């Protein structure tokens, strides 16, 4: 019981820490890897709480497949969260000066 309590508490603390890191990180690739680690810890927690079926599903889908589709998306879009885009000429001409100054 003591070991169970300690492991659950430690995993829960790491879980929250990793989730906060995933939200606060500006580099999206790091954030996605943090989400994958969150899934891994979640899978261990499910296993400790006597749900092996759910742990197996989370391990296969949450860690491998969700992470890879996020990585593919980041490869096809921008990597930094605060990135300013390169504007196309047509877009730039439509904007007035106020909007330009904002960007």
């Amino acid at each position, binding site marked *: *019981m*003591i070991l*169970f*309590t300690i492991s*659950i*508490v430690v995993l*829960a*603390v790491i*879980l*929250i820490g990793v*989730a*906060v890191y*995933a*939200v606060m990180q500006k580099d*999206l690739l790091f*954030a*996605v890897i943090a*989400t994958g680690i*969150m*899934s891994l810890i*979640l899978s261990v*927690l*499910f296993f400790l*709480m*006597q*749900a*092996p*079926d*759910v742990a197996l*599903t*989370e391990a296969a*889908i*949450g860690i491998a*497949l*969700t992470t890879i*589709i*996020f990585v*593919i*998306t*980041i490869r*096809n*879009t*921008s990597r930094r*969260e605060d*990135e*300013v*885009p*390169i*504007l*196309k000429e047509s*877009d730039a001409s*439509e*904007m007035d000066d106020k*909007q330009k100054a904002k*960007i």
Partner: protein
Amino acid sequence: MENIDFNQILSIAIYGSAVGLILIGLYAVLMKKHLTKIIIGLSIIDAGIHLLFIAIGYISNGTSPIFSEKGISLVSEGTKMVDPVPQALVLTAIVIGFGVTAVALSLVIRLYRHHQTARIDQIKTLKW
């Protein structure tokens, strides 16, 4: 040492982290501007809800709901098993969550192709 209430600590840790995950994800959905970050927030909310369901179904000192060879006699002896219904529901929810995430990310890719940005504050037009 004897008068530590383990169940109290456990319930604070598990329910706290589940609710914490839901709140962190909701914060990301509401505050962040980048669409990929918003979808990361959605998957964090998903994770929190799954954890909450499994935690509510847990019974202390219970075994996982899979019968062994002498399984039927185990039931009559009064050995506890955890609740199988939340586990079945979460099993469904994880797979559906993957489908939802995949479709959302494909929409992000499509939006980026059109606007050259995935930040919602820089997308000025409504039509694409």
